[in-house]
């Protein structure tokens, strides 16, 4: 079968990096191709070339037998290529139908509202979406917004659909629905390019795979004929120890006690104890209230009931500063929004939460700041040109290291990690896992919020499972199974096992 889209010998360079080097790739009708590679391997550059945001320095893009040159995103749409991004880029204040037909409204000078509504209804019915065309986009969940984007792609009769980490913010159930939609699109004869970091997803949906490393294609083939370790080796160029670090940490006295913590809507009756040297896993679906409960412990919101005891002293943090002073740190989930200050340098970011330690009289001592930055930055192996380099110029993994360094600089006794490996490549992931092991070995107590079951099961000493704002199950390390944890998280059973 002739490929619907083929990229031949594409190269694209930026000052200082060769993002793509002689990459060829074909997509076929009725087939899902997984594009895999670590962060920085060139996946997003390919997406940007296919969607008309970048033009390649060399090579050709051929769609349905014709060579194309996309000068603008509109050219790419016109050629039948549609992209669904990890963070949806749409208009929150507008309705579903306006989002779908933005840029190609039917009608002449005046917009034909009835036509838009009828066509939107028809498109939404095709993908089994159960919301009305008039719904404002801001009222939809991320999963529903993805459906709007898919409907928009269908409205263009797109032959090629690119999905760039579409599952990043979805719950397990929503991911399942998205995958059946992908199956449906494949059966309709569309070509799909699927980008994901998660191997279970790649094996679930894709027919073929293409692997990039450092801007080059290092392999391709049929998904049925490859194994996960083979793909990992191709991606990183070396085998990675997927086994979680074995730790021999003596678990000490209780550091943090939370009792009956509740707020009006998001979580209720949260109680747990955390000991020195312990990793407490907090598992649950997206929206189960895990982050909200921990943000309350950190002073970002006020509880309506319940109490917190830190190192034997009652703690009622009115703001994060109180929690930090008491020895609690919180590494937030949204790195770019809540974690780093992008335009500031590495040094200013790392010392931001502990500036008082670097004050000499009225003034900040930049040499003291630099000493702390060097010590933590080197310990975490931050890759940068200089310690003054703005954090926005760093890769996602390095930004995450800067955020963790900022929190270690406050010398916490309790550190809450909220999805610490979300969206970073497996190389950095393994490094973060190893580092969490080091932290508890140093006597810290860690609360690990994670939606990745292997990660929680690999690292945690105990796991609490939250469902709809409550802790529904507690598991000790020797008494858990993946099935039981997932069942509890989805609300199927409530268990309480020896923890």
């Amino acid at each position, binding site marked *: 079968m002739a490929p619907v889209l083929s990229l031949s010998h594409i190269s694209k360079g930026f000052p200082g990096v060769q993002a793509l080097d002689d990459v060829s790739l074909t997509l076929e009708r009725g087939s899902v191709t997984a594009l895999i590679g670590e962060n920085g391997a060139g996946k997003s550059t390919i997406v940007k070339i296919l969607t008309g945001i970048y033009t390649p320095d060399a090579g050709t893009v051929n769609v349905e037998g014709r060579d194309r040159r996309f000068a603008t995103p509109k050219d790419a749409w016109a050629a039948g290529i549609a992209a669904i991004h990890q963070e949806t880029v749409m208009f929150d204040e507008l309705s579903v139908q306006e989002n779908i037909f933005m840029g190609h409204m039917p009608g002449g000078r005046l917009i034909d509202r009835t036509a838009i509504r009828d066509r939107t209804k028809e498109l939404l019915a095709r993908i089994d979406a159960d919301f009305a065309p008039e719904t404002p986009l801001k009222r939809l969940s991320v999963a529903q917004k993805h459906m709007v984007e898919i409907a928009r792609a269908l409205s263009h009769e797109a032959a090629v659909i690119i999905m760039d980490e579409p599952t990043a913010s979805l719950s397990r159930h929503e991911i399942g629905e998205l995958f059946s939609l992908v199956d449906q699109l494949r059966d309709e004869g569309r070509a799909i390019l699927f980008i994901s970091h998660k191997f279970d997803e790649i094996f679930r949906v894709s027919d073929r795979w293409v692997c990039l490393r450092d801007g080059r294609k290092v392999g391709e083939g049929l998904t049925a004929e490859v194994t996960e370790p083979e793909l990992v080796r191709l991606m990183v160029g070396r085998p990675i120890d997927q086994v979680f670090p074995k730790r021999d940490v003596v678990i000490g006295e209780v550091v943090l006690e939370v009792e009956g913590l509740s707020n009006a809507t998001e979580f209720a009756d949260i109680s747990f104890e955390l000991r020195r040297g312990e990793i407490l896993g907090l598992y649950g679906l997206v929206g189960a209230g895990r982050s909200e409960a921990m943000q309350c412990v950190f002073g970002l919101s006020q509880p309506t009931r319940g109490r917190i005891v830190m190192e034997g002293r009652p703690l009622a943090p009115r703001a994060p500063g109180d929690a930090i002073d008491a020895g609690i740190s919180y590494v937030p989930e949204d790195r770019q929004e809540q974690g780093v200050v992008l335009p500031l340098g590495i040094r200013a970011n790392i010392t931001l939460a502990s500036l008082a330690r670097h004050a000499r009289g009225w003034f900040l001592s930049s040499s003291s700041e630099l000493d702390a930055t060097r010590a933590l930055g080197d310990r975490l*192996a931050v890759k940068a040109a200089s310690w003054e380099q703005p954090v926005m110029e760093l890769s996602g993994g390095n930004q995450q290291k800067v955020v963790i360094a900022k929190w270690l600089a406050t010398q916490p006794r309790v550190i809450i990690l909220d999805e610490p490996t979300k969206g970073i490549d497996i190389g950095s992931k393994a490094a973060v896992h190893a580092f969490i092991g080091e932290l508890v070995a140093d006597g810290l107590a860690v609360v690990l919020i994670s939606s990745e079951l292997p990660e929680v099961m690999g690292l945690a000493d105990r796991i609490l499972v939250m469902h709809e704002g409550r802790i529904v199950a507690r598991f000790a390390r020797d008494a858990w199974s993946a099935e039981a944890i997932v069942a509890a998280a989805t609300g199927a059973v409530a268990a309480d096992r020896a923890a």
Partner: protein
Amino acid sequence: MPDSPRYTVADRPPFRLADLLLRWESILVVLLALVFAVNAWATPWFLDIYNLADATYNFSEKAIIALAMALLILTREIDLSVAAIVALAALGVGAAGALGQPTPVLVLTGLGIGLLCGLCNGVLVTRFGVHSIVITIGTMSLYRGIAQVSLGDQALTAFPQPFLDLQQTYFLADPPTPLSFVLFLALAVVFGIVLHLTATGRRLFAIGANPVAARFSGIRVDRIRFLLFTVSGLMAGLAGVLLTARIGVVRPNIALGWELDVVTMVILGGVAISGGIGSIPGVVLAVLVLGFATFGLTLLNVPGIVINVLLGCLLIGSIALPILIRRAMRRRRST
């Protein structure tokens, strides 16, 4: 992390002359030199020391407010009520003068009113979570309205001589320097130190660049915002005292439209309206550029409305030029 290779990270980036020359402050220094050169060439009176000293009278009061405004804009806030606070403070000073109060009472009245107005702005902004542009447009009308209602079409003109002497004689005899200019320079040093050398200053940059991450880092964002509005009110109060002493008469339309002059100084000084970028030296340079350019044009008998057109061009030109240069350099580097 044990199995990661070590990287050597430099303490600071390598020095590049182009970076230094393209700094906003460098561009302002060139601009200031140009203003002096052109004016000195165009009129023999420009470089006269007494003329220059008198020129500083005309911008120092606004410049004092601009220092506080720079910190506000840096943290993504703005205070549009400053000119109205100047009027209300001047009204208080005038009223105290009419009651025959001595100079210290007059000064404290002006400062006190400014402080109160600033506190009020601070409370409103931090309590209601509405952007300060909305709140301070409201208080701008409120404060100016109070001044207009209480004064009507009257003017207050009774002041003790020592009070008028504050601004109608030189504070320093040689070189002749008005009190307002001395205060501006001294405050500029204080603001510069706070912004660039203290932990509080670093926190301001963090709030301006990412208020959410700043809050997550334990910075008490609302407390700092509240403080900045209070300082802004206090500076406006001080400007009101100085202005009243200089012109010796208070009418309700005093300092009308100053808020935009002040914002112009801050923007030309390189403070990003989107927050997180800016410097006090930049604002000081911008104040001098604007002040002496206006003064030079006045000496040349250019009508005030034409001066406005020229200053508008200067502002737009000086903002556009570095952007165009950077774009050109990037294009050359990438080809």
